[in-house]
């Protein structure tokens, strides 16, 4: 795509054109020519939307909660952008994206924009381009952007980095009640939702979660993944703590029950982040991690481009034949 087309799309998006919004998302998802320029033009218009992540094991009701939550946010006068991520098949590279099935109540509402995304090989619960797509919706002026993760139930750390408030959904009958969300995912929850409380076993799930949160206060360690700040490099950084009592909200998303409490909880968490200053810390960490990722990728690409074709291949062979060790290989490649 020519640069001036990217520019026109950005102008049209800022003027409220939904088609331009949809096309820009595709451009960015495909890393097509013009995408980088479009993102640069959009960036000054970002930072206004409140970003909420929704994660949880498959079938717990994430999409149904997004549907009902969006209705409640709309009733409170907010516009809502939605990004729903489903897994890409590792065999074919294709995907069936089915989250919209549960969002039919949102059809015909111009204050809502839903976009389905395939994970395209990324393993952290989001696609590599999800952060950028969220920024496009932010620039388009949506008050809240909801991000539904793949929900593979394993490593869903990306969402905690992307969203300000992360909602983890559990439901009764998902096997051993808490097991489904135990593995590290509780760590990232700012709000816990027990959905499907119309089902038997719901109170057991609530009790089990409450026991896990036990003391009532959680110390959320603020991680410094991918740190690149040289002043802080080297020595382990001081853990920072964020005192927030994680609420457990009970919902029946199919009946639109409990969503008022959920929106209240989001508002309270948002106020907490603002008052404690944690919101700046989180954004700063996110930017630091993203910058580190991008630098790593760009530096690697630059290096590969500068070396003769096959240089990396040759080095791999030498390492394999025990002619050189990894550390020396890196030094040799860097020195050209």
């Amino acid at each position, binding site marked *: 795509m020519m640069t001036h087309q990217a520019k026109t799309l950005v102008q049209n998006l800022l003027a409220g054109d*939904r*088609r331009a919004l*949809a*096309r820009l*998302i*595709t451009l960015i998802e*495909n*890393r*097509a*020519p013009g995408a980088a320029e479009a993102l640069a033009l959009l960036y000054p218009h970002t930072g206004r939307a409140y970003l909420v992540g929704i994660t949880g094991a498959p079938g717990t009701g994430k999409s149904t909660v997004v549907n009902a939550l969006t209705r409640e946010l709309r009733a409170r006068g907010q516009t809502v952008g939605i990004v729903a991520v489903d897994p*890409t*098949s590792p*065999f*074919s*590279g*294709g*995907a*069936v*994206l*089915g989250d*919209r*099935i549960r969002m*039919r109540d949102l*059809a*015909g509402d111009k204050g809502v*924009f*839903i*976009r*389905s995304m*395939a994970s*395209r090989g990324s393993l952290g619960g989001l696609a590599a381009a999800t952060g950028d797509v969220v920024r496009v919706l932010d620039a388009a002026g949506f008050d809240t952007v909801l991000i539904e993760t793949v929900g593979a139930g394993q490593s869903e750390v990306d969402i905690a980095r992307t969203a300000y408030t992360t909602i983890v959904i559990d439901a009764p009958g998902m096997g051993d009640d808490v097991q489904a969300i135990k593995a590290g995912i509780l760590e990232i929850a700012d709000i816990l939702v027990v959905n499907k409380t119309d089902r038997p076993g719901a109170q057991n799930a609530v009790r089990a979660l409450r026991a896990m949160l036990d003391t009532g206060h959680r110390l959320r360690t603020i991680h410094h993944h991918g740190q690149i700040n040289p002043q802080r490099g080297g020595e382990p950084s001081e853990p920072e703590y964020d005192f927030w009592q994680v609420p457990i909200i009970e919902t029946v998303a199919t009946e639109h029950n409990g969503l008022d409490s959920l929106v209240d909880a989001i508002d309270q968490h948002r106020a907490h982040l603002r008052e404690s200053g944690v919101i700046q810390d989180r954004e700063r960490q996110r930017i630091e991690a993203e910058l580190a990722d991008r630098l790593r990728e760009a530096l690697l690409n630059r290096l590969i481009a500068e070396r003769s074709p096959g240089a990396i291949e040759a080095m791999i062979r030498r390492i394999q034949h025990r002619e050189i060790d990894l550390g020396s290989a890196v030094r040799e490649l860097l020195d050209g």
Partner: protein
Amino acid sequence: MSEEKIRVLIAKPGLDGHDRGAKVVARALRDAGMEVIYTGLRQTPEMIAEAALQEDVDVVGLSILSGAHMALVPRVIELLRGEGLDDVMIVVGGIIPDEDIPRLIEMGVSAVFGPGTNTDDTVQHIKRTLKDR
């Protein structure tokens, strides 16, 4: 590094209540490397056009078993054009009498696939037609 994927919306307009065929097609397109947005049963033409716009799809696949295709298809096409989505390819599957096929093609449908269609044919048709653009 650009990585384009063919994006397809599979929708079931109208009131007939089963989507086994639509799901088989959705999975076949996925297995051919496409990203398929599956929207489920009982979609109105308005819902289909809106989803096609938001999802920026290359193809809209309509599965119709109810016999209402001569009403539903032109309505979907009209709405897509109204949104400026003139270049979206439309394919129709389901139970469509032979004599209706030429009229659907005339309206702008790219191809009609009956119940016995091999899903490979659908895949090939989509890939070929999009490449020729």
